[in-house]
């Protein structure tokens, strides 16, 4: 099994979720992160002084899937999250040794 991790733009999340559910993947875990990269942050003004905010808010999506589906997941997420503008994000895949569903204790692909 693998874990697919995607860093995406916040507004792409819905499309990504939908796209994944077409693949039959309903489960995922998401979190707020801040990204640094080619895409630049913005400027804010307080009491006449400007401040740079260098990070860019992003969403991290983590999806467990079977190894076979990994490529498909990556492809689907790539398409769903792409705007073509700088800052669209990254996807990476790591191998997972085991997965357990806490509720039942079952392990392996069925636990996903």
């Amino acid at each position, binding site marked *: 099994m693998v874990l697919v991790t995607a860093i995406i*733009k*916040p*507004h792409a999340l819905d499309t990504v979720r939908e796209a994944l559910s077409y693949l039959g993947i309903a489960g995922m875990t998401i979190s707020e992160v*801040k990204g640094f990269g080619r*895409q*630049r*942050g*913005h*400027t*804010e*003004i*307080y009491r*006449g*002084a*400007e*401040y*740079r*905010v*260098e*990070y*860019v*808010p*992003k969403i991290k999506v983590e999806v467990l899937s079977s190894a076979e589906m990994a490529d498909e997941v990556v492809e689907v997420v790539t398409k769903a999250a792409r705007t073509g*503008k*700088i*800052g669209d994000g990254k996807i990476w895949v790591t191998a997972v040794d085991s997965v357990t569903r806490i509720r039942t204790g079952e392990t392996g692909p069925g636990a996903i």
Partner: protein
Amino acid sequence: MQHLLVHLQAAAAPSFSDKPYLNTGDNAWQMTAATFVALMSVPGLAVLFGGLVQKKWVVNTMLMTFAGFAAVLIVWVLWAYHMGFGSPLLRGANWKPSSDPITNFFANFIGRPGTTLSSTGEEAQASIPLVNPGMPAFALPAASVVYFQFVFAAITPLLFLGSVLSRIKFKVWVIFVPLWTSLAYTVNAFLLWGGGYWAQQGAGDFSGGYVIHLAAGTTGFVAAAMIGPRIKKDREKALPHSLPLVAIGAGIVWLGWNGFNGGDPYFASANAAAAIINTNMATAAALLTWVLWDVFLGPAKKPTFLGAVNGMVVGLVAITPSAGYVNGAGALLIGAIDSTIVWMAWTYLSRARFMKKVDDAMGVVYTHGIAGFFGGLLLGVFADPTVVEYQSVAGSKISLRGALYGHPKQVLIQLLAALTIIMWDALVTFVILKVISFFTPLRMSDEDCEIGDLAVHGEEGYPETEGVSRILPGYGETIGVPVPSAAPADGSITVGGGA
């Protein structure tokens, strides 16, 4: 006799006066009431609306409130006050009522513009030319009345701001408000309070059910229609960002209304006190009524805080036209009835295609427009002639008589006055916005709407939290330094939708 004089002396001796017209108690109350009403706008509505919008719009909302408040005052003292409360513009000196109602109407439609800037414009005895003959002489300086009427004029645009939030351009807002005040509000005020046509016909509007709330509802609705809806995302997920902010605003609005309705007799009179308690009674009844409807018919059958606030606002608006014309029983009933009407409209009428099309962000057309409209009609029903505002100059009591007390025609008069306001304000709003739209778009770009405050003002409501510092306390040392003010960040402002 000796005794009487001594008594009088004890009572009155301490007063000093270089202004023989002045009654210090009346003036104390008028200044106080005006301050309470002003607090309803800043910070009241600023945070009431500020809490109800998404976090990304809170700065824009608050800035439009403060700036709108300021902008009205400038035109008010330069020309608008006299257009609402001065001598009629379209009347010769020797004018006599004509047999033609249209002629009469326009002769009593609006006042002659003029400033209030001079020392006498501020310190001389207050006076409203067309009203003076009927009511006791003001025991107040002009400044007290001009300022009191200003806080009313100022809150009206801030109410309909609620309809156009989250997409109207800031520049359009600060242009629209003074124009609307000059052309629409002044007419509303003149017709009903400045002694104009509808006042002469006997229409009643104690503190602005029509002049202010119906006007705000109408204007907001028309403006929302013309400016178009918020962006899809904002409209579909119109989640408030802070209910405690709403509570602060709501509390100040409720009690500020003690000045709103209590200040309108222009005297610290028994009627002022009656207006205050009636206001609170109608509000309490309306709040509880709304909560009950929520519990019995609401989507989740639960009492909700924002429902209670809706009910509260409706109660305040409902009693505004009649606060000093009805007795306590009338006040309770008006609150409960109007709250029921608006609850039903809010829940069912809002499903109508027509209502859905117009994106009235805060529902001003319900809680102010419809509430004010029916509040005015209910005055026509419940006005109790034994509730006396004051003795007129002629010695007779000034009061109104509603349908329940044998004068059903009052309802008709109220209705016609309401229709006049609706038509005039809709028309003026349409024309002003149309004209502005020739010069500049009325709405922000969709990209700006995606981002919100940061795009429009370069500010966020909770900068430290949203910014780097909460997550990165040590961050500032290298990158958080103020950048030279001329250098805009390259590729900057990409947060939000663009991110």
